[in-house]
């Protein structure tokens, strides 16, 4: 309750300055000057302060913005493009970031990443996603990178993995090894396949293993693909195994039952499973209305399922449906 109130106060301050737009400088007033707030939380405030900082004029706040002018670390973060607003919404992270010491904690790890080959432009995104990287010791990070090297990942692949999945380096080598083993065993992958998959979608390896197991069941038993076909799907669209199961089945059943696409066709064009349901539905219904919904490559006037889901509505209407946007819009209003 209190947090909402104070937070609103800060937000309102900014909004009111947006609205007034006088161009004149407003005095920078601390948004949390109300005395009752100070009385209620005096001890908590002192705990959250970086102890080496001589400034004692901190007041309680519920966003990091109030500390930015006083903390060197946060200023550096903003210059790097770290989204503090995003970080503070996640539980416990705001406090953690506030207590960081730039020279002792942050700099060595960033230098480590830079030495690894991670592009400095991506640091902002990296830290926004995973500020907890500053909790890991340099020795651990080195071991984890060495593990990848020992598994014959090329330096370029390692960079891609770390850039795409900031959480990768948080996982101990044992856990990563288990997970890579899980994928290798269940999808019958060889070493190259595993490296390809890891580079293509590193998030899948560190995803909840239980979720992947359920997705595996969904694809195998509910959708009826065999292991070989499942492997094809995994390597073409790893994202399918991170999707909500019911959504996946819904999309599959639409493609298979409604659009009459065979398993083979879906394997050739897995885009139909990664595209949003309403998009496929609208476009398929429009083609059906024009009597152009013909997805059999052996017959005339074949429409590729990939062309169906690709591109903007305008591209689809002009190139695939050979119609115009006005007709398409009018059709959508009758659905």
């Amino acid at each position, binding site marked *: 309750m209190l947090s909402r109130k104070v937070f609103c106060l800060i937000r309102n301050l*900014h909004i009111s*300055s947006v609205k007034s737009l006088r161009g004149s400088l407003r005095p920078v007033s601390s948004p949390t000057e109300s005395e009752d707030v100070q009385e209620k939380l005096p001890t908590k405030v002192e705990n959250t302060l970086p102890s080496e900082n001589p400034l004692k004029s901190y007041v309680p706040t519920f966003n990091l*913005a109030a500390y930015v002018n006083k903390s060197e670390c946060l*200023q550096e973060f903003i210059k790097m493009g*770290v989204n503090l607003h995003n970080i503070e919404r996640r539980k416990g992270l705001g406090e953690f970031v506030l207590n960081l010491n730039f020279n002792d904690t942050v700099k060595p790890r960033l230098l480590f990443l830079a030495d690894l080959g991670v592009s400095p432009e991506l640091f902002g995104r990296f830290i926004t996603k995973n500020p907890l990287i500053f909790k890991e010791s340099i020795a651990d990070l080195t071991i984890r990178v060495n593990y990848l090297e020992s598994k014959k990942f090329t330096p370029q692949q390692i960079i891609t993995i770390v850039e795409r999945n900031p959480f990768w380096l948080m996982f101990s080598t044992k856990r990563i090894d288990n997970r890579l083993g899980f994928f290798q065993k269940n999808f019958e992958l060889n070493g190259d396949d595993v490296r390809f998959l890891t580079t293509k979608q590193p998030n899948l390896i560190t995803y909840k293993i239980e979720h992947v197991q359920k997705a595996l069941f969904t694809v195998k038993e509910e959708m009826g693909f065999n292991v070989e076909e499942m492997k094809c799907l995994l390597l073409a669209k790893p994202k399918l195994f991170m999707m909500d199961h019911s959504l996946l089945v819904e999309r599959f059943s639409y493609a298979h039952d409604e659009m009459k696409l065979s398993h083979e066709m879906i394997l050739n064009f897995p885009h139909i499973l990664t595209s949003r349901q309403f998009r496929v539905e609208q476009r398929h219904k429009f083609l059906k209305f024009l009597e152009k919904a013909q997805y059999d490559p052996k017959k005339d006037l074949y429409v590729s399922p990939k062309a169906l889901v690709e591109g903007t509505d305008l591209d689809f209407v002009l190139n695939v449906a050979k119609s115009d946007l006005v007709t398409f819009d009018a059709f959508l209003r009758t659905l």
Partner: protein
Amino acid sequence: MNQILTYNAPTVFKRLNGIVKLLKPALKRVSHVKNAFLFNVCKDLNALNVRPPRQILLESGGAQNVVLRKVNDLSDHILAVGPRYQIKDIKCSVVNHLGEHTSGVLILGLNRCTKNANKLRKQRFIRTFHVKGLLGTSTENFFWDSRITCKSRFSHVTEDRFDSIVSSLQASHQRSMYDLCGVDIRSHAGYELASKGIIRPEINDQPLIYGIKIIEFKPPNFTLEIHVINENEEFLAMLVHDIAIELKSVAHCNGISCIRYGPFHIDNSLINRHWSLSGAVHSMNHCKNVLDINMNVND
């Protein structure tokens, strides 16, 4: 009408007051549609020229020769305080609450026009629905997305039979309107009430059908056009079910589309490709024109 081209986000935000007309897809909740629309509007507003960070005075140069410099206040940076425009900054009120299975016109009032939106809601406009039905099967909740409970033949159902039942339904509803007003339909008071125009009893909870007709009949599919107030989608689906029972068959509702809400017709409503700032501005202008033309009709 004066038209200005501006890329200044605060100017645009100040002008963002009006009624917009969206096309709600079926099986998406109103809250979802509203959120998706406002999210896109905020994204577009943030892409314009937003307010730069405030500036603060900074001392440098030591105690002897104090130099005051103006620098950007980092605590007012977008990365620190979040995007300048967020969903909760835009006030939005929904005029007609469509059910989850319904598609069609959804009217929203933005910012200063939320008051107007509330007024519009109190006007209790007549809504027009196109209700699609499928003869032969009935389902648990009368809609298409639940379990089938019953099947029956429908070869004996003809359009004439359909028409007669539908028109008797309309007549009984019209009679009940006079009853709700406490007036006998055959009396002089009844005549005077009827001569004033459409009767809208003050009751808010009882659905009243003003007109119902069958506009398409291709067994097993049929489409009803229903003019109604105080309805909800369960009522319309139940109506399809009841009509089919009268016809000694069963049916379920296969789609509901709100094609008109008072003066707002489904044409020119924003389909989800157009849920954006520019779409919102276009729709606002359109709705303003519609309301200007129909102002005396509304009263």
